[in-house]
């Protein structure tokens, strides 16, 4: 497994653990009320499990298993994929911080834009690797 996949999949695992914990807190609170304001965690929970966990895991596994480019430079220039990794995680954290802190809408907008840029960068990087094995 290449280094970028290791970082992506481990980051995805952390998001899974935190996302499940936030969801668990809200579900517990629905059954036995701890603090009504815990419902504010909902958008953060969704952000962590949807983008931080599921999307990031898919990107990490795709980088690992899709056909390689050449024998010598198997992954080509992975700079864009690393940028995608940084932007996705930065974006998820910015959206989560924006939701939790009730900060101005620009922080959440910045986070969503970073997520968009991450997916675009990853798509550009991975595009030539969507090909027949050995092709």
């Amino acid at each position, binding site marked *: *497994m*290449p*280094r970028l996949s290791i970082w992506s999949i481990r980051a995805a*695992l952390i998001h899974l653990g935190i996302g*499940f*914990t936030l969801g*668990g807190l809200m579900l*517990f609170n*629905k059954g036995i009320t701890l603090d009504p304001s815990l419902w504010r965690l909902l958008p953060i929970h969704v952000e962590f499990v949807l983008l931080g966990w599921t999307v990031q*895991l898919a990107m990490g596994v795709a980088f690992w298993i899709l056909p390689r480019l050449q024998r010598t430079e198997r992954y080509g220039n992975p700079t864009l994929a690393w940028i995608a990794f940084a932007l996705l995680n930065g974006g998820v954290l910015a959206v989560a911080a924006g939701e939790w802190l009730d900060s101005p809408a620009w922080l959440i907008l910045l986070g969503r834009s970073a997520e968009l840029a991450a997916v675009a960068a990853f798509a550009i990087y991975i595009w030539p690797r969507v090909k027949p094995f050995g092709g």
Partner: protein
Amino acid sequence: MPRLARWFIKAGLLYFVLALITGVLLQARTVIDLPSWVNVLNPVYVHLLTVGWITQLIIGVAYWMFPKFSRERPRRSEKLSWAVFVLLNAGLILRIISEPRVTMRSEPDLGWMLAVSAVLQTTAGWLFVINTWARVKER
């Protein structure tokens, strides 16, 4: 494919079908009269899809295909992985049973089931993270 991976994936498929049945019920209530508990099934529908199907499919495939931990223990702790399977499914089933009733306030005494469900699913998530972490490696 190891036995536990098959259990995860087959359980995931069952939840997938159950999720889509729930989705049909949620839509059907707009056309025909259905019991009132159908109106509060949305969270169950979402979690049948995302936890029961997608997450469980990922766990099963990761258990099967991720790099081996060692020659002696290729999938690290098999016991821990079975615990993930039992806790995740028990937690999800408890949620399916109790959440609509608690939401409708018809049986608020079942709130403890939701709390237990939350603890079981959260524990399952972290146990999966712990057991999988060291298998996310170069070889």
